[in-house]
């Protein structure tokens, strides 16, 4: 049923009184009784109406575009920003749960509020990764493992070697680079990949072929060649190399 249906026709007597004379007469009487022929007090109200329209017109037209939507925009922007800020830690925590290693600053934020993120390795466990990047494979690991202990209590050999090897390394890195060859001379190729601790400028036996001293048959300078004992005796040698290498960023960089 539309507007122009029986319900509209119910009021059809307004247009055609013959449809319902009683109601038509009643409607006429209502109009005559309630609706005045002239608007009352128009001489008083009309100037006020014009004034009210003039007063509202300029304030609405000019700054309307700026004024009216601003609070909503600001509120919407604030809500969005708050939403994004609230999502950031959740996103980081989600990454941590998924097994992603978060960077230090992100972890520290959670640690500062007392939240331990899952799947985040502790600091000591992170060391092998860094050592692996500097050295080569197992040699690098061993060098880093050892770097903790000798650093606290360095042996005489280690200290001497480190000092002398630094000098040697600086002096001989350039010639070594010029000489070329693959026998672990400093300045060659990628020191990290060669696995040789920087500072060891003495040519190594051919069979060592770029492996860290201590792991191979190479003998540290100033030491007589002895049959290798398992693990312990080799650590200081490895620590020498790693410490020397750690202190010698320059030869590495030069080598590249």
């Amino acid at each position, binding site marked *: 049923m539309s507007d122009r249906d029986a*319900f509209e026709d119910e009021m059809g007597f307004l247009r055609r009184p013959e449809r319902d004379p009683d*109601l038509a007469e009643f409607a*006429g*009487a209502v109009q005559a009784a309630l609706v005045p022929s002239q608007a009352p*007090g128009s001489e008083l109200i009309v100037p006020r109406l014009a004034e009210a329209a003039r007063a509202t017109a300029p304030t609405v037209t000019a700054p309307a575009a700026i004024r009216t939507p601003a609070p909503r925009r600001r509120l919407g922007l604030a809500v969005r920003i708050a939403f994004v800020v609230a999502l950031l830690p959740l996103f980081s925590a989600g990454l941590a749960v998924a097994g992603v290693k978060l960077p230090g600053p992100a972890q520290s934020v959670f640690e500062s509020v007392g939240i331990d993120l899952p799947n985040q390795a502790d600091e000591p466990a992170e060391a092998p990764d860094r050592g692996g990047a500097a050295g080569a494979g197992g040699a690098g690991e061993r060098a880093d493992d050892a770097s903790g202990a000798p650093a606290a209590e360095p042996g005489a050999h280690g200290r001497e070697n480190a000092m002398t090897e630094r000098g040697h390394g600086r002096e001989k890195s350039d010639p070594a680079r010029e000489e070329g060859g693959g026998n672990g001379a400093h300045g060659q190729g990628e020191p990290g990949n060669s696995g040789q601790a920087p500072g060891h400028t003495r040519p190594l036996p051919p069979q060592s072929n770029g492996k860290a001293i201590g792991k191979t048959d190479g003998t540290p300078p100033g030491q007589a060649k002895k049959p290798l004992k398992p693990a312990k005796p080799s650590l200081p040698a490895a620590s020498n190399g790693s410490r020397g290498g750690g202190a010698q960023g320059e030869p590495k960089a030069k080598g590249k």
Partner: protein
Amino acid sequence: MAPNRFSALLGAAREGDEAAWAEIYGELAPAVLGYLRGNGAPDPEDVLAESFLQVARDLDRFEGDWRRFRGWVFTIAHHRLIDARRHSARRPVELMAEPPEPELPVGEGAAEAALAKIGAGEVHRVLATLSEEQRAVLLLRIIGDLSLAEVAEALGKRIGAIKQLQRRGLAAVRRELAKEGVTL
């Protein structure tokens, strides 16, 4: 009113042209006042003035033709009527026995002829038997000349509810007219 004419009138009224406002007020104020009187507004003339001041303040927001404008003015008047009722409910009201009789030259038209037969008192009595909503619907239809949809918009109701109110209101009017033996 022709669309072009109304558009020019609206533009002039927005700029505060008194002649435009005099025309708008002259066209609509009598019907709005009749609606307010029929609904028993506490002080119809005051409510009428407040309604048109509200129209003047909000005129820049209005968009549409004359018919829509007419409905919009009645909507504002209905809201002001509700406000006036609430306001008067909080303070003692001096009740009037009879609403003021309009000064009408009797016998000049069909409406006046009908009023001469029925009488203003009878009109008010019949209207008083209707519920507030029935009365508002019938007065907006008769005095405001609004369609069902426009009445629904003015009163904030669904059109189906307006149809029911109209039907029941007309039935009540018929009953009252028959009861009093007003047969024309």
